[in-house]
């Protein structure tokens, strides 16, 4: 759901960066409290995730480094630091440390009931905030400057969205793990984007895609042994994206290709008709028959186009001869006028 905003804001890789940046937070939270209580660890992850996000923003606004460099930098540096802490923890004489690394790759099976409740509650809060600030989010997304002139506190809204993205990522970490979280954030939104141009519809659709990917992925991974949940969910989501890319009616590759072919055929039809028109023009009687052979020199002519022209009653064919009909002559003479009118 929140992924929609990330995709539209061109911050897609933020998810990846945040999910890596959350690791040191988890490790530090564990070092300080010594417990493995998931809510404590998640608060740590949240803090370090936010820290990472704002540092990324600081780097891009204060220096001339580009956002991709900032993202890659924060991602790898935070993650490396997290690894350092994790290995450091492993050497500590504390029996409680096992299992921290499940955050790396995620294990939906380790979720207990309280975790699920927590997720449900946070999702609910996200939903409420989203509805409350819908207008602001939307306007900020598409026209930040306009929002500012309207007097909204853009910084606040911006931070709000970012915080919720971070929150969603941190919660998801436990399920699908660090590496795959970015796909969970992006894939449903990218798939949903292909089907609609409306933000509200896109958000709903993304949520549905995400949920389906989750359900299918879990089902597939449960049906087979040795198949971890996270990667399967991601692949299912990836299949959704691929499907959307190809089959979406307005933006999909398949229909785009079909449209291109159709346009080309139309153009050839028009070209042939125009060519015929120019020949017919030289005669007093427009219906004067001509041999089909003279069309052969013309590029773009095929028997198919001729048949189609006949089908549309623009020409009549008798044996080897064709002649333009009254209707065909009219259409052909208007062909360029129409185009001129359109250009103007």
């Amino acid at each position, binding site marked *: 759901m929140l992924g929609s905003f990330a995709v539209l804001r061109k911050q897609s890789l933020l998810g990846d960066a945040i999910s890596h940046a959350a690791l040191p937070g988890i490790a530090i939270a564990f070092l300080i409290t010594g417990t493995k209580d998931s809510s404590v660890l998640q608060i740590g992850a949240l803090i370090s995730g936010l820290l990472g996000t704002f540092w990324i923003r600081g780097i891009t606004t204060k*220096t001339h480094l580009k956002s991709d*460099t900032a993202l890659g930098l924060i991602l790898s540096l935070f993650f*490396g630091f997290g690894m350092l*802490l994790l*290995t450091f923890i492993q050497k500590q004489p504390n029996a409680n440390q096992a299992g921290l690394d499940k955050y790396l790759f995620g294990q939906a099976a380790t979720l207990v009931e309280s975790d699920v409740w927590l997720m449900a509650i946070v999702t609910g809060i996200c939903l409420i905030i989203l509805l409350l600030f819908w207008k602001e989010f939307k306007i900020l997304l598409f026209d930040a400057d306009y929002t500012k002139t309207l007097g909204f506190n853009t910084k606040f809204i911006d931070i709000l969205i970012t915080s919720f993205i971070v929150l969603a990522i941190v919660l998801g970490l436990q399920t699908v793990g660090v590496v795959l979280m970015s796909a969970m954030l992006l894939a449903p939104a990218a798939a949903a984007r292909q089907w609609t141009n409306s933000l509200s519809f896109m958000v709903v659709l993304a949520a549905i895609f995400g949920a389906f990917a989750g359900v299918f992925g879990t089902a597939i991974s449960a049906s087979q042994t040795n198949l971890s949940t996270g990667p399967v969910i991601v*692949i299912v989501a*990836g299949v959704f994206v691929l499907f959307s890319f190809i089959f979406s009616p307005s933006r999909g590759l398949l229909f785009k290709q079909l449209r291109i072919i159709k346009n080309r055929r139309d153009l050839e039809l028009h070209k042939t008709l125009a060519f015929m028109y120019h020949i017919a023009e030289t005669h007093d009687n427009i219906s004067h028959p001509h041999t089909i052979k003279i069309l052969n020199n013309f590029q773009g002519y095929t028997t198919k186009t001729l048949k189609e022209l006949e089908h549309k009653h623009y020409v009549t064919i008798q044996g080897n001869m064709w002649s333009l009909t009254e209707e065909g002559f009219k259409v052909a003479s208007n062909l360029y006028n129409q185009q001129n009118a359109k250009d103007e």
Partner: protein
Amino acid sequence: MSSSQIEIQLIASIVAIACAIPGTFLVLRKMAMISDAISHSILPGIVIGFFITQDLNSPVLIILAALTGILTVVLVEYIQKTGLVKEDTAIGLVFPILFSIGVILIAKNANDVHLDVDAVLLGELAFAPFDRMIIGGTDIGPKSLVIIGSILVLTIILLIAFFKELKISTFDAGLAASLGFSPTVIHYGLMTVSSVTTVGAFDAVGAILVVALMIAPAATAYLLTTDLKRMLLLAIVFGVTGAISGYWLAHFLDASIAGSITTMLGVIFFLVYLFAPSKGVIAVIYRERQQRTEVSLLTFLLHLKNHQEEEERHVNHLNEHINWQKVRSKTVVELAQKNNMIVIDNGVVSLTEKGEEFTSLAIDYIITNEDAKIEYMKDDFFLFRG
């Protein structure tokens, strides 16, 4: 220091250099995230290579992994070209899917071999010296040292051979194309080198550290210089410094070497980020403030020049008229006085001769739309900057 310690540091340093070179170009070409994508998506290549050869040390693995890396780049570009999603989304979609395929392949088929995800992602430098390369019965050094060393040599040869082409196509792809080098060839060449380096290095230091070693030194160097050669050199220096100091940090904390090298790189970057002379955060904030005060000063002087009446130029009146807070007007007035541009006589502010001259020149520049020249003018007139 034992010989294995020296070897570890040597490996780390060579990896650092090998990564810093393509990394610099990636950062300059705004493609830093591609290295992250490559480092993840080589996993299926390695796994498939392992299935084919059943041997973790086979060079087929490296070739296949590099091929997957290039496949990632091609896929990302293809998706981007369809115009359906932006480049960053394309990257974010491609590599987790490839990575997932790799993870599933491992989980399904390779349970009994020591090919696990942790090792691929994190690597363990500490064991690198024990994996020796033996040719003809003689020990010629740790295997990863030999591999990454040869990659480094290859990279350096390519760098020197194509330095000019790389430079031009990085900064001006259009010019490069018009001069007759294909930017596409250079692009894929760079991508191939990045993939090969990633693959060669990940064995020793893990995928995440490869990303850190590629981006962090280059980004740090970019904050300090705008000269390509110097940037390459600085990136190498930072990479090696990070590698060696990171090793000792790990030694001291008894923690992961890859993790501590990354941490050291982070510390170096953070210091430079704060204190870099012209592009560091502190310098930028300082300059922003200076600019703001100087613009205020100019506004103030213009105001004085426009108003001959005494009541418009009274100190008390200025506060409300220009609508500045007290502190700021105080700074501005003090700065103007220090630069001998105004005199305050009985609470009334007036311009000195120098102030007049400065303001008239500034007006000229503003009217003729040559605002940039005001900066040079400031150098001539100011004794003290804001």
